């Protein structure tokens, strides 16, 4: 697999990997049949991501995307975190092989789920996905 050095760095030295105790929001995306599943935990303070951790089952691209995405949303407002696109994650990793781009969508979707989990727990309306958003994995199997 021809991964960039950035991907290999985040794969081998994942940032923010682990579990957050008492998180304000949890998001799980993917399924083990697809071969990747990401679980993300967020702490929110003053409408910002105060802390974030992830656990990922998956290939090098899935783990690296998870790591990079958490690094990119740390300290950001919830709106900014919501707007983080899978393309931005892939770009920050110096690109992903074409068949691995879906792995970066995993991270985007997991972040959305965590933010909406937080919003619902706060008694707020969950945000809606933008029209045309494709889920990372079609559950066809």
């Amino acid at each position, binding site marked *: 697999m021809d991964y960039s050095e950035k991907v290999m760095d985040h794969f081998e030295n994942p940032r923010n990997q682990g579990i957050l105790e008492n998180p304000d929001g949890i998001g799980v995306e993917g399924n083990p049949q697809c071969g990747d599943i990401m679980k993300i935990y967020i702490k929110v303070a003053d409408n910002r991501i105060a802390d974030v951790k992830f656990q*990922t*089952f998956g290939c090098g691209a899935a783990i690296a995307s998870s790591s990079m995405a958490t690094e990119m949303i740390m300290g950001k407002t919830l709106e900014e975190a919501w707007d983080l696109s899978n393309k931005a994650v892939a770009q920050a990793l110096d690109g992903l092989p074409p068949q691995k781009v879906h792995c970066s969508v995993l991270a985007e979707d997991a972040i959305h789920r965590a933010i909406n989990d937080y919003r619902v727990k706060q008694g707020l309306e969950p945000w809606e996905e933008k029209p045309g958003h494709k889920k990372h994995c079609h559950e066809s199997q």
Partner: protein
Amino acid sequence: MTESHIIYMDNAATTPVRQEVVDAMIPYMRENFGNPSSLYDIAKINREAVALARSRVARALNAEDKEIYFTSCGTESDNWAIKGTAFANRDKGKHIITSAIEHHAVLYTCQWLEKQGFEVTYLPVDEFGMVNPKDVEAAIRPDTVLITIMFANNEIGTIQPIAEIGKIAREHNVLFHTDAVQAAGHVPIDVKAMNIDMLSISGHKFNGPKGTGVLYIGKRVKLDSLMHGGDQERKRRAGTENVAGIVGIGLALELSVKEMDATTKRLDALRKRLVDGLLTIPKSRLNGHPTKRLPNNVNVIFEYIEGESILLMLNRRGICASTGSACNSASLEPSHVLTACGIPHEVVHGSLRLTLGEMNTQEDVDIVIDAVKDIVQKLRNMSPLTPDELRKY
């Protein structure tokens, strides 16, 4: 172990060419470069070299020289045997029997034939990847023209009951082809005793050169050609002979067969040590048959983690291996072999194949066991699926 020391445990993918085989090939690229079809003396040397290689292959299989046809690879041999038989016997029938765990060279060829109007039965396998000969017999129809079942599986190493299937095919007067790409040079093959009508071989799986293959075609077999053109290979497979490659595959097979007992004994011991070491990892299991398998094949599954990640981490430590995970394939499909054995998709992702070869030592095996243990734990710590009792920080 030095930084540059590579531990190559992917010998089912390919093998390095033996030095004595390289040495034997080189003269046929420089001084003996003639075209075997030419009249002059220097071409005679090439004809003789091809003839010697042919008889070496024939002896290794208990075949006759004129039943050996050189091809460009195992895939060509499989394509030729299956398409050639199907089209040559269209007046007799259009039904082919194969198994769910064949190499794609067989599987996709059969699927292509289905598009051409042929009918194919894909037999299931048991949990060990074994085809039941009774299923083969039950699948035979009056219009069955070919049974094609692989000798040994490339992913899990399971060796099929080839002699039993051959006997059934012969009794029902149906042609029997076997893809022996993983078996040739590794386990004994006797095309006569096993009632094999056609058998595919690939040179680079037993320390011969890439780009070389053999199709054994028994005398009674009628099949169409795949390659049309010149009069080479008794007018059945056109194309100027890859003389150096043919010399290489012939010698490599002869040497592999000669050394088979010693190699098997050595690899069996290494394999046992490797399997025992890997299975001390909790929630792991061996895929394929416990005893009826290739001496060099180890295929294990570790739950809660994904195979490509294991390979990447092994690669960083200089260890070359393989996986059946979907994430490691361009199609993103998990191994059809492991899923045919009844292993759920989510578990197939955690498979690791290690195939031993001449270069591997006991020290290598111990290094790999320690590396895999460490990597599995590291990935399990990262995985949201891992039960808490298997996490270590």
